[in-house]
């Protein structure tokens, strides 16, 4: 009987040691994972900042104007190209085509 108890305790002890070791190891892994994720977040934040800067650099008015001149056959809007809804009403229903000179 005593031997059985000793055996059980021994097994239990070794088991607990294993479990503790596993727990410690898991904790370390989780800690490292957290650190890793922190780094990934930081990296992602930095990537976003870079991309945002890049996007704003590429869409700067200077460049957009050059691209628009090259690829679009459009001119800057002149002051005679604006009409209000009131103008349409005044001109009657058939005014719509007349607006586009």
């Amino acid at each position, binding site marked *: 009987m005593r031997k059985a108890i000793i055996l059980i305790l021994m097994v239990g002890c070794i088991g607990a040691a294993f479990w503790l070791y596993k727990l410690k190891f898991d904790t370390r892994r989780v800690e490292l994972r957290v650190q890793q994720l922190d780094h990934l977040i930081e990296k992602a934040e930095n990537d976003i900042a870079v991309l945002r*800067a890049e996007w704003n650099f590429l869409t700067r008015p200077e460049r957009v104007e050059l691209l628009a001149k090259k690829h679009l056959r459009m001119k800057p809007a002149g002051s005679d190209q604006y009409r209000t809804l009131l103008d349409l009403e005044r001109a009657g229903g058939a005014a719509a085509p007349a607006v586009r000179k």
Partner: protein
Amino acid sequence: MPRSSTSPHRLLKDRGKADNRTGNPLRRRALILSFMCAGAFISIMTQLIRIGAQDDQIVQLSMARTLGGSLARPDIVDRNGRLLATDISMPSLFADPARILDEDEVSEKISAVFPGLKAASIRKKLGNKRRRFVWLKRGISPALAQKVHDLGLPGLGFRNELRRIYPAGQMAGHILGFVNVDNRGMTGVERYIDEEVGVALVQGPGARDKLPVRLTLDLKVQYALRDEISKGAKLYGAKAAAGIVLDANSGDVLAMTSLPDFDSNRPSGSLEKAHMDRMTQGIFELGSVFKAQTVAMILDSGVGDLKSTYDARNAVKIGVHEIDDFHGRRRRLTLEEVFLYSSNLGAAQMGMDLGKTRMMEYFRQFGLMTPLKTEIGRSASPRLPKHWGEAEVMTTAFGHGMAVTPLQYAASSVALVNGGFYVPPRFVLTDEPATAGGRKRILKRSTSDIIRSLMRANVVGRPGTGRRADVPGYNVGGKTGTAEMPGRNGYDKRRVIASFVGAFPMEAPRYLTYVLLFEPQPSDETKGKITAGINAAPLTARIISRIAPLLKVLPQS
């Protein structure tokens, strides 16, 4: 050991029992022990295999860490949220001189990667063996960092630091200012951020959660203004040019530029005198544009009205000064004519009528007597006459003998057109209503009304000097000024500052523009003239026709 004495007996006894049942107890124990050992080894082995088989990502990434001690700055955006400045983490190269084996080899190889870095200067840095840390190059691109890494030299290392980037580049260098190598703001809005908003030391993520600093600037308007001013300076052969677009009611600076300017990403040129911000750091005698203020003072104080007349027949000599008109009419002029013909003689008499005390009081109200303080720093101090004698009163009335910054002048002109309120110009958009800070009535509404109609008349037809500033549909109004610059022998007729102060739409102005050309040259385009009516006025027209649609000002039909 009490048990050992009894063991032979017990062993024999036990053996007898055990043999009968499960065999030799010693073998049984050995078996259990070996099983346990085997189990332990197997578990260790499986654990090893598990760890070995796992793809561990922990090892990399060490280069992506940001150095504690980097200064995180809030982003700067324009009024529509367009990014003007942001922080980016970039590697910086450092060396530990004590661990460098061959200084010559290291300095040769490093200078080969960075052409801007001299081998001799690197060698000097590495020579000091007592130091354990020296920066070699800060803020380098990841590709170059990889190149240095691939050299495999001991004693070198990288730390990531936050660096300031300005995606809009040169667009608003004078307003944004720049930061030093430690990411501290030195001038402009960057300095304002250091002083008022605050920067924080960072480590780890979450440093970017700060709210951006929102400027009153509109990047599209800023670009249009800068582009037109730049083209205008070229067209009229001006040495420098500047301009501003102000919201006439809130004082918001929507765009401001002074050419030549500099790129905040490369601020090394900003300290040269040619690159100075003429809008805030230069003081100039602006000339006839001041007559708008003079006429306003006359009307507002009740010293004169629209029916008053002024003698413009003969040149007036006071001491060494001689005052005369550019295009002399040689007769008495009404107040309106003084404005439209831009008569120096008329304005000088207005100054005399007004008197020194009233004049100085109005100038003080206009904010022209003291340096202007805005978010981008303190403007240059105005240069006032040392002694306000008769001559000074007469000349300041048409904008000479008193030098102010163009920004200051533009701010004072806002009151002429917005119903009589002085509004300090601002560069940073805040939550508080624009009408809150510092807005105060300095002119009667009726005064502002008359000035507006005079400014419109000056553009709408003869004999106005600003006819070329008109843009169909936008009812532009304004005043020209061609100021001779003081030279070695008095004022120089060929060196002038041609400027135009304009507002639109004139029936209820929303925006004020002020454009300056420094030393424009006569050309075929200008029929050999250098006066503001032929260069600054049409330039204003081009600017307004471009920015009005951007600012959602509907044209009148």
